């Protein structure tokens, strides 16, 4: 199916939720709230774009939340606790995330281990490492590093008191590069092809192993970037639960946005819309009085499921109509 058609349903659902929330809560449309929503979507969106590459190859990456934790704890630990300089810290983080992505990819391609197993072990391992590294202590920037933290917290002022959060700019840059990479370069083409039929792609003379490794590296690097931005935004990280469950959110957003877990399908725009939907839903639950916050998960689950079902039913209905029309002419 046309990928654009696939994201029609989810876009409609997003629009629907936005309209309903805007009507139910005046505060939804304030500049401040919209800025917050954009920033959160940006942070989670970066993770989702990363995992989308892996999902497109037909794999899965469960290590994202733990990489967010490792980097999120590691950055303040190096800067604030150890007092290392920023370039050193960034270099180390860069080397580590690329290294982790490489290791995942190599284990999956060279040793033919299942992606689920490798990245599940990674999930456990990196969280344990982060806890060991920090001695289970919260690490944060305190009141220092405000310059660096503008990366996550500054808003570029626009008209009318509204500002564009820097993470949003970062997301746009990442998304544009990702979209061009996926749709306009041969490597993106190879990723899509190998996600659909690994053997056919290999038989076409393409080094599919290398492409698969690349996907895991992209995922790890974007998880690392996300982890940095998250900790810069929140200002401190607690190793035991920083980034917990984020892999599920990221995967859910990617899948909602049209990535098939069987591989070979996915658009970057869809992934971002999927992420935005999750964030608007969570925002809605806090803003709208009628919804008790402790059933937050139930609401998110129900809305998404309802949306997906409605989407499917509408598609079927349209297909039936079309068939009938054809039969009659």
């Amino acid at each position, binding site marked *: 199916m046309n990928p654009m058609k696939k994201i029609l349903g989810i876009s409609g659902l997003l629009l629907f939720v936005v309209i309903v929330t805007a009507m139910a809560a005046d505060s939804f449309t304030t500049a401040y709230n919209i800025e917050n929503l954009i920033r959160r979507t940006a942070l989670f969106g970066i993770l989702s774009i990363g995992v989308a590459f892996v999902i497109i190859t037909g794999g899965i990456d469960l290590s994202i939340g733990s990489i967010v934790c490792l980097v999120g704890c590691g950055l303040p630990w190096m800067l604030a606790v150890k007092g290392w300089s920023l370039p050193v810290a960034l270099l180390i983080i860069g080397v580590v995330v690329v290294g982790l992505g490489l290791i995942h990819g190599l284990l999956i391609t060279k040793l033919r281990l299942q992606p689920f197993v490798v990245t599940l072990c990674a999930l456990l391992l990196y969280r344990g490492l982060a806890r060991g590294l920090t001695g289970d202590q919260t690490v944060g920037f305190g009141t220092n590093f405000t310059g660096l933290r503008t990366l996550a917290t500054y808003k570029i002022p626009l008209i009318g008191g509204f500002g564009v959060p820097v993470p949003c700019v970062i997301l746009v840059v990442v998304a544009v590069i990702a979209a061009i990479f996926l749709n306009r370069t041969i490597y993106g083409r190879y990723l899509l092809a190998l996600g659909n039929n690994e053997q056919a792609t290999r038989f076409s003379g393409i080094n599919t192993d290398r492409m698969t490794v690349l996907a895991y590296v992209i995922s790890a690097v974007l998880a690392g970037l996300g982890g940095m931005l998250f900790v810069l935004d929140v200002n401190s990280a607690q190793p035991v639960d920083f980034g917990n469950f984020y892999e599920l959110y990221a995967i859910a957003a990617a899948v909602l946005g049209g990535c098939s877990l069987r591989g070979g399908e996915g658009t970057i725009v869809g992934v971002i819309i999927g992420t935005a939907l999750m964030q608007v839903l969570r925002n809605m639950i806090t*803003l709208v009085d009628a919804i008790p916050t402790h059933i937050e998960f139930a609401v998110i689950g129900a809305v998404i499921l309802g949306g997906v079902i409605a989407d499917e039913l509408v598609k079927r209905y349209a297909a039936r109509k079309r068939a009938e029309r054809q039969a009659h002419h």
Partner: protein
Amino acid sequence: KPSADSSANSSGSSNASASAKKPKIVFVSNGVDPFWVICQAGVEQGGKDFNADASMIMPAEGLADQKRILEDLITKGTAGVAVSPIDPANQTEILNKVAEYSKLVTADSDAPDSKRLVYIGMSNYEAGRMAAQLMKEALPNGGDVMIFVGRLEQDNAKLRRQGFIDELIGRTPDPTRFDPPTANPSGNGYQVLGTLTDQFDRAKAKANVEDTLSKHPNIAGMIGLFAYNPPAILEALKQSGKAGKVQVIGFDENDATLKGIQDGIVLGTVVQNPYEYGYQAVKVLTEVLAGKTNVIPANKYIEVPARKIRKDTVDQFWDELKKRLGK
């Protein structure tokens, strides 16, 4: 019968003779938190001072995990166990089982129906009231207040919150009262806007504050009941330029909270004394193991009271804390 029938000799059986004389003591927390890291310092210091092999275990996955660890400690033959039960009302059985094989004390959170020797801690309800007193000091003319907490189904969270609400709106104290999470009690000119939970997700904790600012632009005060809540509040306020405009009362002694007090954007925080919980627990357990049962008071309650920290006391408190943590 399990082999761990005699705790004293089984603890010696597996280890070298040097540690054989040292009784093994373990403090089991209710989760993983910096709070417990401070407690751990107390446990370790107690181990040194009272010549015990004392350590700390933090269950990462809640109730079932705590039970599993307690079972494993019985297996291991631990002489003395201190525990902060997550759900005391329903954990009597496993606690009694531990009490059967080891000396058991509760700390931080009590299980009065169990066979624990003594409870070391404070009253969360009273601590909540202390926080409300700070809030009233910050907002003498009343105002709208939002409560932020990690979860609400833990006893300590419930009691703190209730103590806070009752004191704030001027009810007569009653620790058995419970306002549902969606309630908006008001009185005395104060209105509680609600209670927002985050399940320990820090990004979510911050998002809760942000969403509150969206929804209630005129909010007067915020209180964070778990250690990381006040920093999350401060962070969101700073980013929205409202730091100092909304009154913040904290709980516990996170660095950011203490810094906030120094900077004057937090009026005060209520601190427990986790270091003392750990230290006292080891002290009581080693003495009981040595046969000195008179360390246990008749009411089976060793109080380690909560304190209010304001701008005047924060520097001294912080220095002391840093020293204990060996920073």
